[in-house]
């Protein structure tokens, strides 16, 4: 197994490079993604190597970035667009919901809407407003779309390539706060399918699920819990829509307890969907109701306060304690 250590940012860059090499119809488009390589340098060097026609610096209009990717898809191109930050995706919301999600259906399957919308998301980078949000529930709720999130370098490398090869439109959520964390990347074989959840740590007592930046926080909580005698099974959800319920259900049937972690508010969220689905499927296995650890139901706070907004190890452990107390 040939593995290499690299940051998640570099893994995404390498995944994009490989897709550009493999398929001449693959294009990248976004603001500042050319010479600059994107504000996070995810596309660093790609315009130099693949040219301005394939790595396109876009004028500053998100609806147009997505709306023209739709037209390119109709013409047979496969475009990966970069939305610079989570909070800037809303001007494109109309195109995503009205066209991206619906054109395959509206054309009776004639249009292939295979395109990827890369969305840096979640907080933890100390930014100003609109740069730390978790808009994934809006998209997870929309029929016609699929939503995935990577949490480490190996997944970033493979999931971006799998997303590009997939024939449905995909919202690809990248946790900004993990861009610079290093991990082992297997350059030869993908770990698993795009729409599968992953058990990151096995445990007996409580199943804790999360995605993106939350996965690492949950793993830290699991280490602490271990010292206190509580064994946590950690699941990286990876595919937020559709959910890989089989993997989650298998775990909860074993542990009897579920905690769902996310940075978005919990109302009408990915976490609330998981809790609801699991209570329907695991009713007789559950020892406690499914609980959630989420961002609060307020606009994302000024980031000097974000550590009190985002799920922390302490808040996760508190939920685990409450679950164990039932």
């Amino acid at each position, binding site marked *: 197994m040939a593995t290499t250590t690299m940051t998640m940012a570099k893994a995404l860059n390498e995944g994009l490079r490989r897709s550009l090499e493999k398929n001449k119809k693959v*294009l990248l488009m976004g603001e500042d993604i050319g010479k600059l390589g994107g504000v996070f340098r995810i596309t660093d060097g790609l315009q130099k190597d693949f040219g301005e*026609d394939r790595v396109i610096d876009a*004028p500053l*209009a998100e*609806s*147009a970035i997505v*709306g*023209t*990717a*739709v*037209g*390119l*898809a*109709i*013409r*047979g*191109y496969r475009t990966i667009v970069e939305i610079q930050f989570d909070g800037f995706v809303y*001007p494109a919301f*109309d*195109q995503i919901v*009205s*066209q991206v999600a*619906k*054109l*395959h*259906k*509206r*054309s*009776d*399957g*004639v*249009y*292939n*809407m*295979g395109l990827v919308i890369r969305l840096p998301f979640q907080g933890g980078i100390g930014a100003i407003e609109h740069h730390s949000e978790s808009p994934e529930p809006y998209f997870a709720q929309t*029929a*016609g779309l*699929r939503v995935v999130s990577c949490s480490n370098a190996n997944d970033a490398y493979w999931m971006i390539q799998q997303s590009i090869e*997939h*024939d*449905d439109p995909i919202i690809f959520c990248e946790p900004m706060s993990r861009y610079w964390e290093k991990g082992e990347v297997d350059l030869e074989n993908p770990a698993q399918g795009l729409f599968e959840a992953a058990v990151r740590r096995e445990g007996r007592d409580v199943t804790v699920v999360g995605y993106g930046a939350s996965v690492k926080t949950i793993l830290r909580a699991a280490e602490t819990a271990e010292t206190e005698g509580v064994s946590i099974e950690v699941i990286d959800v990876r595919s937020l829509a*559709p*959910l890989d*319920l089989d993997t989650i259900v298998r775990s909860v049937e074993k542990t009897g307890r579920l905690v769902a972690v996310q940075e978005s508010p919990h109302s009408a969220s990915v976490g609330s969907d998981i809790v609801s689905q699991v209570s329907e499927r695991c009713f007789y296995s559950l020892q406690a109701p499914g609980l959630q650890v989420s961002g609060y139901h307020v606009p994302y706070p000024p980031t000097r306060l974000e550590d009190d907004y985002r799920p922390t190890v302490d808040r996760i452990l508190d939920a685990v304690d409450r679950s164990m107390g039932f």
Partner: protein
Amino acid sequence: MIDDELVQLLSPEGQRVDQGDYQSTLSGDEIFGLYRDMVIIRRICNEGTSLQRQGQLALWAPIQGQEAAQIGAGRALGPTDFTFPTYREHGIAWCRGIPPVDWFRLFRAVSNGGWDPQHYRHSVPTVVLGNQALNAVGYAMGVQRDGADEAVVAFFGDGASSQGDVLESFVWAASFNCPVVFFLQNNQWAISEPSSLQAKIPLYHRAEGFGFPGVRVDGNDVLAVYEVTKRALENARAGAGPTLIEAFTYRMGAHTTSDDPTRYRVDAEVEVWKHRDPVERVKSLLVHEYKVKKTALNDVTAEAEAMALQVREDVLAMDRPDPITMFDHAYAAAHPLIDEGRREMIEMGISGGSH
């Protein structure tokens, strides 16, 4: 003439107009063909209104008054050009060869599309105003990358011209010099709002601010619309970039069958536009210049009548689809929630589950 900036080759009375920049290149037979197109499309669209009034359609969007704008543009298209319509482009659909019954699937509420857009090179209707302008520009970016000798047309109206997507599409088309033609039918009314609410300058002037040419054509003059569109398409294919065409026309009827225009516009205005009727002026030209016989004109009317009756028959035969078809093509690949929905529908006996 409505104003001196307007390209017009045929006056409302059916007299040739000497317009320096453009000359009509069409033969008598070709003009007769455009006349036939307009008579047929008008008749079929009137059938649409009747069908809606009789409870056979959920809605209908009439085009009466805009026949010349649509037939002129539609007949100027090359076979490999690609078009992005709104829900009112029945004349373009006709020119693209789409069977009339297919235009009615959306309005019969049995489909959200209605035809194979790749086969006819005419996209499915866009109901969210202005979205299609960006999709058209994206398609044109693909044409550029393919090095193809093709042009793309985005259709929209004076109302949609205020949408951010349309204005963003102007920016992109200019920045990337896209082979796209923006065909704006200014029919003066966006439901109840006059075009003066959308723009304080003639709409075609907007193009200049974005860095490409704009032209206002008499949208009720099929000869002028044809020539102006043809040149814009040729320029696009030749790499000369986008053009905004403002077809200055008038919606003689309601916005849709749900609308009541008597609440917001005066009869006198409609009367003025009646004298600019797009079909009558071509008829006058055919009779006076080409000596077309009354029998030939009557034959067209009879043909249109027969087609409208056929449309009526086809629409009435258009059944409610099997509910399980709602799951078809929601996704391209397998999806657990689609499987779950299908299963539930079959278990509940709502569908036989033939799909």
